[in-house]
């Protein structure tokens, strides 16, 4: 068991890749070959899911910070090592990845008919990259996974994408790449600082947490490096005004690509903030707190507004991602437990809901080969089951209480109010506009008479599609009703995150202003 524990993460990370390598051997010429290729890929992702459940089970929140660790020297002279480990922050994102992967694969059974072998190979390699990034505790290793992830995505969009796929995929790749390069420089600088301060090079995140770096001014190391990290992560999130790659990438990507992109790749940004940018540069965070909160708020409202007027469903969902991820930023920069938990939860929610939305859009795209909202109307009558599923996911997206979306947004706003009521009030406008664009889109697609003849004969969901959607719908409600199930394994990690991210460290408990403290004293006296 001990052996298993110390290699569990490696196994999870590389299983999909190795599995997909083996899949390359399957002859894909015939129909039967194609089918077996699909099944093979699905099995691989399911197996990974199974292993990740083991991770869930092994992780003890009360235990040490990183668990299931594994460290192998990689480039010792530079302090670079292959070291994996996971905590609560990693756990749920890993689970999200492994949970969504089979769904994405199953969802693309009909969508992709060309170059199947490459397709599933890339999808599964992508999974390796993503899980790897979530469990890397060495900054360099993290960066390796972070960048390596781009390759499969680049091809997925570029080969199986829509008309403008090349523009989109180049934009996606370059945006992300450019953003992350400066982070790499900062990583190097950190390792160098570790040498200066402790005598050895190290890229271990736990070692780097211990660095003391100057902060507080624009040009102080913390501020500068925080900005370098934040640039990389903000692009990935994506934070206004660095979001313009997202609509293009989303619209052009094949369904599974959009799902993974929205559901997991964007989370890399948030995860990066939580794991690296914040704890490493608390004073940088403090210095830029307001800036980023403002940007997050703008993203919320801006994303919602722009989403509202999109003629293309996928683009609308893409902009809604901007809006939703704006909440994450707002929550993280509020620097308190409630908001941070909410932000993390919002990432999971967004993964589920937006992933599901893209799947749904993909399903209708397969039938109609269009995503223009104006080409639909009255679909609800033709495809009632589809309508039900779409409705549930829409509601999750507008954060209706009882669904997962609510928990995230509620906690974020509740927490951010403490940090900045004015911005919170503006951000809460997103609650209104979120409903506006989602429901308006829903109405135009689903309601009214069937205005296009082509839509008359659309088939309702098939059994496979139902199988794709049901887990997501269950997740929507499960997460909305039993968030504590998730919080339990998350709490210590969030606390540690905050303890490191607030300058001065210990001030994790909420700051209470003097006026209300007396009131609260009375309350506690009861």
């Amino acid at each position, binding site marked *: 068991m001990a052996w298993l524990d110390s290699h569990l993460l490696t196994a999870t990370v590389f299983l999909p890749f190795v599995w997909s390598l083996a899949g390359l051997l399957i002859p894909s010429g015939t129909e039967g070959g194609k089918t077996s290729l699909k099944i093979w890929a699905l099995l691989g992702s399911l197996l990974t899911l199974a292993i990740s459940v083991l991770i869930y089970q092994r992780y003890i929140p009360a235990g040490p910070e990183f668990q299931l660790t594994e460290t192998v020297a*990689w*480039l010792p*002279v530079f302090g670079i090592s292959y070291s994996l480990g996971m905590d609560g922050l990693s756990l749920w994102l890993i689970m999200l990845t492994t949970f969504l992967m089979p769904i994405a694969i199953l969802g693309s059974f009909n969508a992709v008919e060309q170059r199947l072998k490459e397709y599933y190979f890339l999808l599964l390699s992508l999974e390796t990259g993503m899980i790897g990034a979530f469990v890397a505790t060495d900054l360099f290793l993290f960066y390796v996974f972070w*960048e390596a992830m781009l390759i499969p995505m680049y091809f997925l969009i570029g*080969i199986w994408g829509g008309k403008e796929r*090349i523009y989109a995929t180049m934009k996606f790749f*370059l945006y992300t790449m450019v953003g992350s390069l400066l982070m*790499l420089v900062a990583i190097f600088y950190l390792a160098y600082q570790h040498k200066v301060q402790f005598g050895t090079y190290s890229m271990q995140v736990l070692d780097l947490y211990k660095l003391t770096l100057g902060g507080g001014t624009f040009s102080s190391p913390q501020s500068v490096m925080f900005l370098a990290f934040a640039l990389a992560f903000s692009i990935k999130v994506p934070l206004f005004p660095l979001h313009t790659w997202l609509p293009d990438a989303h619209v052009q990507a094949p369904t599974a690509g959009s799902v993974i992109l929205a559901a997991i790749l964007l989370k890399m940004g948030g995860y990066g903030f939580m794991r690296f940018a914040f704890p490493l540069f608390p004073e940088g965070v403090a210095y830029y707190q307001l800036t980023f909160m403002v940007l997050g708020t703008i993203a919320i409202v801006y994303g919602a507004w722009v989403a509202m007027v999109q003629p293309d469903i996928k683009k609308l969902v893409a902009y809604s991602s901007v809006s939703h991820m704006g909440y994450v930023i707002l929550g993280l920069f509020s620097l308190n437990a409630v908001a941070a938990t909410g932000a993390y939860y919002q990432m999971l929610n967004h993964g589920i809901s937006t992933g599901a939305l893209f799947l749904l859009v993909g399903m209708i795209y397969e039938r109609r080969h269009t995503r223009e909202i104006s080409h639909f109307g009255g679909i609800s009558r033709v495809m009632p089951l589809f309508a039900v599923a779409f409705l549930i996911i829409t509601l999750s997206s507008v954060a209706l209480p009882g669904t997962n979306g609510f928990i995230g947004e509620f906690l974020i706003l509740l927490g951010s109010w403490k940090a900045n009521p004015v911005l919170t009030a503006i951000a809460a406008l997103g609650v209104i506009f979120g409903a506006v664009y989602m429901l308006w889109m829903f109405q135009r697609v689903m309601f009214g008479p069937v205005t296009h003849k082509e839509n008359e004969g659309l088939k309702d969901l098939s059994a496979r599609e139902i199988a794709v959607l049901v887990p997501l719908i269950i997740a929507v409600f499960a997460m909305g009703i039993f968030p504590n199930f998730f919080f339990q394994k998350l709490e210590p990690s969030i606390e540690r995150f905050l303890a490191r991210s607030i300058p001065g460290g210990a001030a994790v408990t909420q700051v209470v202003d003097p006026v209300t403290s007396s009131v609260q004293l009375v309350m506690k006296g009861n």
Partner: protein
Amino acid sequence: MESLTTIRPELLTLSSEQFSALMPYFWVFGATVLAILAAVMRSLSPKWPVITVVLTGLVGAIVSVAGLLGKEPVALFNGMMVSDNYTHFFSLIFLISGVVTVFASIRYLDNEAMQHPEYYLLVLFSALGMMLMASSLNLIVIFIALELMSLAVYILVGYRRTDRRSNEAAVKYFVLGSGASAVLLYGAALLYGSTGSIGIRGILDFVRANPAALSPTFTLGAWLVIIGFLFKVAAVPFHMWMPDVYEGAPTPVTGFMATGLKAAAFAAFLRVFVSTGYGAGLTTAIQTHLHDILWMSAVLTMLFGNLVALTQTNLKRMLAYSSIAHTGYLLVGMIAGPHSEQGYAPLMTYLVAYAVMNLGAFVVLSILATRDDGGLNLHDFSGLSRRHPWLAFAMAVFLFSLAGIPPTAGFAAKYILFYSAVQANEILLVVISVLCSAISVYYYLRVLVYMYMRDPVGTQTRSPVSVWSAIAVAAMVAATLQIGVMPARVVYAAKKAITSI
């Protein structure tokens, strides 16, 4: 007055260590001689015997170099030459790139109807020249070795004799290269004049002994020598010849130049650089100024190479500009070397990675080149992944590596290089470098776009892939990935090599 002892018979004998240290050179030169014999024997059809001999020579040299690895340095010929790990490290690069070039050339020459034994001989000559450049400790020997290498390469560049572009490239290269050699030589003369020694060790001793006595001529001489090397590696502003020459040369030769020649120039450059005491005894003013110059040159090189590569549509020319850009990265390593913990090891690692990926890319280009080096425009690559899935995959690996994206050699090496530059506190330079390499991503990926994301244009036939090329490509892919995943061994080897100077 003491009498002069000019006759020293002991210099003409070789100890067994010295002999075995010279084995690689014997292998190569022996192969040359044998190949000449094989070529002139009319009864033999010249292709395979010559190739066999040439490959045997190269492989034999590789084997004997491998046998020498890790041994104590052996001084040869009155200290004019040394066989140390540094030599071996670079020899391996040259020899492997020689082998790969030969592999890539076989089918290529058939295609171009110029399957002559001379071609392989010239490859051997230039490989020999490269090896000597890395091992010599005397400026004159370096010069001769440089000329040996260059003369062979001049001919190789112009080898497609009936092709205008090839001719043009050869003449350009010759004129400018000779001019640069003259400059280098002038520098050697000045160094000699100001230190009284033409040997690198002698110069170093002089610098160490009289740090204050460094004269303008010394500085000027050292710099002119360095310019000679900067010309060969094509650092801005000494780069002008490179794109034209790369484009005009036969594709395998371009690959050979981009890797072997560049590595050789860096090998000698580094030796002289270290020897003339950058960081070892020059006055601070000179050091600062030298640093500034290299810094500017590195920045300009990266910018120029990458920006112009952006606008290229011919792959060969694009890779030429990208080669300039890579020189820029290497110069970053040059600048960082004296001040970072790993010294020049990252630079050498990068050279290895660069050699591997670039060779691979050029082998692929050699395979795809149609007659007269046509068919290397971007649109010729449309839909390559349909015609040649494996070739396209290999090319993708090389391009990702050139762009510095994990998990490839280019990534590992490039960022180790930048890492050490950060250690040397060259933050601004590193920032510029990474931004430049971001630019480079665009044009590398554009090739991928054509290969994978566009449909084939017109009727393009599958180019036949020879077994040899296939082996070469596969080996380079494997090496690219291997170094990308496990760079440590190369770094250690480089470290060992550089410390043996």
